[in-house]
């Protein structure tokens, strides 16, 4: 029987959100790749085509949720990796604040881009 070993606490909202966002991202990341490389080809992408896709409320909402969940999952993953490496105390707090700022900036810029894509801005 394999022994379960993890160096971070198996509880709390961070742990749960990392798993919940993972479940969502498995589907959406695969969908994103399929749509923009196999259904449509990346080399043929134009602003008009992007605007047509992003003009659909369901697609826009899915892509915006994709941005938010991927940002959380990725940035929280990096934070977990740093904690696993032994980061603690002030360094840990600085890393957490820096990563939180980077995540907020990414979501803000991504939202701005999404609104420019669907013609709202």
């Amino acid at each position, binding site marked *: 029987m394999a*022994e379960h070993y993890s160096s971070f606490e198996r509880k709390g909202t961070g742990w749960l959100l990392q*798993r919940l966002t993972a479940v969502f991202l*498995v589907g959406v990341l695969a969908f994103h790749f399929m749509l923009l490389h196999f259904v449509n080809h990346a080399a043929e992408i134009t602003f008009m085509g*992007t605007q047509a896709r992003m003009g659909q409320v369901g697609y826009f909402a899915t892509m915006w949720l994709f941005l938010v969940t*991927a940002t959380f999952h990725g940035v929280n*993953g*990096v934070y977990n990796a740093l904690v*696993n490496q032994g980061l603690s105390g002030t360094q840990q707090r600085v890393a957490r604040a820096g990563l939180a700022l*980077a995540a907020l900036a990414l979501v803000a810029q991504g939202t701005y*881009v999404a609104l420019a894509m669907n013609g709202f801005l």
Partner: protein
Amino acid sequence: MSQSYDRGLVEDFGRWRDFSAGMWAWVFHKFTGWVLIGYLFTHIAVLSTATVSPDMYTNTLQGLEELLLVRFLEVGLLAVAVFHILNGVRLLFVDLGVGLGAQDKSFYASVVLTGAIVVASVPTFLAGAL
């Protein structure tokens, strides 16, 4: 229940010769995760051309797609994303305590399936660039 003990820093890459399948899965998952979060920031930066003008967005994306290097990098990104997805599903099962006895085999399956999907995708990704 097995006795727990201080095994030192898990992330001691100096011990790579001792790594088991599960440890390699963990290393690859971490590496692919770093690549994907790095790409997400880059991706949003490139797509930000949409905030300048429609022409700039179209020209930037199509200009990048004309570069053979970018096409190969996209194949690499596909490999990274597919492995992270497949191993992520494996990890969700591990978290639920399902199939722990076969966690090494499921890692090998993730690697093989990633390779098969990537090889099958190469013609699509390189179309028009060669």
